[in-house]
């Protein structure tokens, strides 16, 4: 796997993990309210 491949993998996974974390955090916050 080339360094550019790692970069693509990291950016893609980071984006998806970020989206999931954002959604679950918001959902948890609103549930507590």
């Amino acid at each position: 796997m080339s360094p550019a491949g790692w970069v693509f993998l990291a950016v893609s996974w980071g984006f998806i993990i970020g989206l999931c974390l954002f959604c679950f955090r918001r959902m948890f916050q609103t549930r507590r309210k």
Partner: protein
Amino acid sequence: MAEHARGHHGSAERWGSRLGIILAVAGSAVGLGNFLRFPVQAAQHGGGAFMIPYFVALLLLGIPLSIVEWTIGRYGGTHGHNTAAGAFAAMWRWRGAKYLGLLGVFGPWVIFLYYTYVESWTLAFSYFSLAGLYDRSTDAVSMSAFLKAFQGLAPNDRFANIGTAYFFFLVTFGLNLVVLAGGIRRGIEFVSKVFLPMLFVLAVLLVVQIFWLGVLGAQPDPGWNSRVLDGLGYLWNPDFSVLGDSNVWLAAAGQILFTLSVGIGAIVTYASYLRPDDDVTLSALSAVGMNEFAEVMLGGCLVIPAAYAFFGSGEMTAIAKGGAFNLGFVTMPLVLNQMPVRHLVGCAWFFLLFLAGITSSISLAQPVVAFFQNVYGWTRAKAVTVFGLTSFVLSQPAIWWLGHGAVDEMDFWGGTFCLVVFGTMEVLLFGWIFGMDRGWREIHRGALVKLHPVFKVIIRYVTPAYLLFLLAFWLYDSAKATIAMSGVSAADRPYVLATRWLLIGLFIVLALSMRTALRGRRRIQELRP
């Protein structure tokens, strides 16, 4: 249908919880495409560089369309409609609107007709794995022969006819009907809440198995990890030269529509069972996030790295070019057969596909069941029974004419063409006819996340332009060849043509019966004092 809506304040059926609907929509989206189609598409179209058009399509097509579909569905639901046909009629006073919306009932039905058959193969293969039935098949040729014999295309000593495949089809078909008969809360929501977490656990276990096989395997293989990483490299190492190729952008857009189950009509139906002030923005984003997690992170770590580590670069390229289908039913059994506890791992892989399949197929069926309930006023039991009987008859071409291209024909019109056309209609209806300001207010009613105003521009201009470009490109590039069946052999043409007429006939019957039912209802309403 709009007249029938008056006096209704939402349908009787409701989701039990927010998590339930999110899991049901995510279950609808997470299907065979996530684990089979995505890795092949990515590897064939520039590896890591494919993710650039993929994420552009996710942001400009997938997320906006998903939010629009959830909103249209909830709006239709508050007016007593559970299908796109009814929702379109509620949003647009033009008499023809419901016929355009009918595409959101017809499309999923067409996909259901062949999808259940493919889904039944995954159930059959999970049993075959457990029983060690394909242990004798040790290469791609013998595994292909096993699959073809099972499908009744080339009988051999193992499968003399299509009987086994037909048995598993009946079981799968019956299971789908049982879930549908349970209704929204006790059927679809229950199954999604149980099956989707199971699917994620199975997928994670398989990823762990593949990545740690060098350590966990019966005979430690020190070179294993580097080969798996090379497999990941096959998927992720970027080839920027493809970014100038419009086909790559089309493939990425197609994959996004396909994987998120947008442009089908299933989300419209599911969202119609929400309450009027239930959130749609955060729910839509959560379902998109879960689908992408399953597709990019789990789907990308399974098939390609495993096949690469076992077969090496040359054979892997040939396998990927052979298509998603071969990869799932021919390559993966061979790969998994070389692992420790191979029967269990093989069973887990196919059961994972089965779980992904059934949560999708029930979402394809529910729009039709809801259509029968809404338009004819039938009970759920009657709607499911009629749906079951008609679907059983209509799915026969997919089974008996598989070798003649019937499934490919259904897949193109129901699973590709309708997606783009219906998605375009939805976003144009929402942004231009229903009105963007009104639509924006509707999106944010009860919303737990406020969307950035840039989405207003995206939904009104960018998404429709993107979809219209896709349609125009198809018309220019391949419409003539597709309609003229130029890639189909002379022997198969009668079957493909018959399938095509069957689909046209189905749409006409649906439209005429809806017209008759609504006219009858209007007459009854006029007779009332």
